[in-house]
């Protein structure tokens, strides 16, 4: 029995190492004195100091966070409305519309970027935060739409029918029955969209303007001159922040379940 149990452990170890050693290296090398990533030349906080002096970099980070938040939430509203509303629409070309709605994630990003560039300059929308938000929202919508649609299929129609039977109007049904049931799908869609928006380079570089820069663009366009460990420092801080948020949300989650349990007993 013992022999058999060893294999899963080894497997898990390899997978975990593959996934997390690179992250660990990024963190370690953010404290490296040298500019070259292959040589360890001593502990230093100089890249963190550089990072905090670089106002443009911090501005780009803020831009990226704002952009990801705004576009994932806008996409959540539009995508949810579409998923909930679509079954009620009686339209000749409905299946075509449904098919087209997932197109933004099927088309290669580079083409989408070019198309946005041409389109925005055609309608003379000034390039900047607005164009970025529109573009990001449009490629985030399909994620939410598909997740919510899948979730809706799994919900028993009788809940809504029972509510209507007891006198609830459409709005009440949506607000009190449907929305709470699909909320997990919306939440995971928003998280997915947030991540997609936060690391998008290809589309952003086409639709960004003179004044706005996002973090991924700044990092990616450093390839010409060489990426400095400043990026490692920034990644480490972002990693720490993410970890903190996850820990806090688990902690809060546990607290609420506990209090609910206590109330029930």
């Amino acid at each position, binding site marked *: 029995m013992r022999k058999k149990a060893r294999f899963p452990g080894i497997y898990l170890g390899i997978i975990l190492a593959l996934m997390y050693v690179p992250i660990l290296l990024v963190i370690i090398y953010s404290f490296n004195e*040298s*500019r*070259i*990533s*292959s*040589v360890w030349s001593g502990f230093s906080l100089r890249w963190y100091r550089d990072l905090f*002096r*670089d106002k*443009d970099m911090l501005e780009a980070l803020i*831009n990226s966070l*704002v*952009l990801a*938040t*705004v576009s994932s*939430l*806008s996409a959540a509203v539009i995508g949810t409305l579409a998923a909930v509303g679509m079954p009620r629409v009686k339209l000749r070309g409905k299946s075509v519309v449904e098919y087209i709605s997932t197109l933004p994630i099927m088309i290669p990003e580079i083409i989408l970027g*070019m198309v946005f*560039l*041409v389109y925005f*300059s055609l309608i003379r929308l000034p*390039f*900047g*935060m*607005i164009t970025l*938000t529109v573009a990001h929202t449009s490629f985030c919508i399909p994620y939410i739409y598909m997740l919510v649609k899948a979730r809706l299929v799994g919900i028993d129609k009788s809940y809504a029918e029972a509510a209507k039977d007891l006198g609830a109007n459409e709005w009440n049904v949506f607000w009190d029955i449907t929305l709470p049931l699909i909320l997990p799908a919306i939440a995971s869609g928003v998280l997915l969209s947030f991540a997609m928006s936060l690391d998008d*380079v290809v589309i952003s*570089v*086409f639709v*960004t*303007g*003179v*004044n*706005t*820069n996002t973090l991924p*663009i*700044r*990092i*990616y*366009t*450093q*390839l*010409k*001159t*060489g990426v*400095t460990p400043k990026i490692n420092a920034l990644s480490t801080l972002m990693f720490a922040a993410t970890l903190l948020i996850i820990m806090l949300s688990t902690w809060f989650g546990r607290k609420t379940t506990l209090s609910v349990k206590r109330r029930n007993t």
Partner: protein
Amino acid sequence: MKKTAIAVLVLFLFASLLAGCAKKEAQPQLNLFTWEGMFPQEVLEAFTKETGIVINYSNFDFNETMLAKLEAAKGRDYDLVIADDYIIETVISRGLAQKLDKSKISNFGNINPIYQGQFYDPKDEYTVPYGAGVQTIVYNDDAVDIDIKGYADLWDPSLADTLGIIANHRVINGMALKVLGESYNTEDLDTIRRAGQKLLELAPNIRIIKDDNLQDDLLSGEIDVAVMYTSQVTMAKLANPDLKVVFPTEGIGFGIMANFIPSNAPNPDAAHKFIDFILRPEISAQCFEWLGYYCTNKAADDLIADEYKDFLTLPEDFTGDMEMIRSVSADAEEVHTEVWTEFKAACGQS
């Protein structure tokens, strides 16, 4: 509870949209468009401090992206662009650049004439060079028995399996062309094929072919000799000053980056001021030490620190024996690709 959550979300949405739109507008602006990391932070800050002009630094990833954005904006939006030579040729031919007003650039005379009058701007009307890259040979003297003087020495059998090269087919094929005494940009297909044959003889010496971080392999001792880009040479030399840098005797091929002002730039005055500012010898020296590309400012050569000198400035006896790698006809390009594929296969790389 639910309602408050939603109210907070909506508020946040509006607040963040506003934050995104509200921008510094009152001060004079300079919209700089180039790769990230082209200037040290101090230089940008000093410029703003001296002139009061706020720099909006935005980035593109590839030259081609820059061209697409410039065409979509019809030469508006951006005040100053720094890009590679070959794309500037296209930019100028499509009328997307404006002629420089040299009366506003008092330091124009500081430019090293070797980098002027190039194919993309033969009369120096549109551009001011900012940094040049050259593919140089760098080697670890302790591990190599021979004295490397030029490309031809790389074929030496004693270098078996110790050589790392960049993955740019025009540069590497060009190396073989140069050894044969031909031009980088020859259109003669047979000559290119002959270079291909010559290149196959080099295959046993090749250990690594790759573009990024080749300097790391040289530093770690994985390879002893490398043919690589200037910025990589800089990083390698800073980490290990004992490495030897060679100007191949066969002649060298430069790539030049240059400034130009788009045809309908909103703030051309600010752009001229910035060009003039970075042409000052002391500012230039600071920029090139940071950037790690060849110094294109003659007046700054003397100010570059000694530890950087032998790989950021041209040697004293340099006679201008150089040739730029330019686009060739589709036929020639096809043979180049063929030759390169065959060579990589011979090196055991796909």
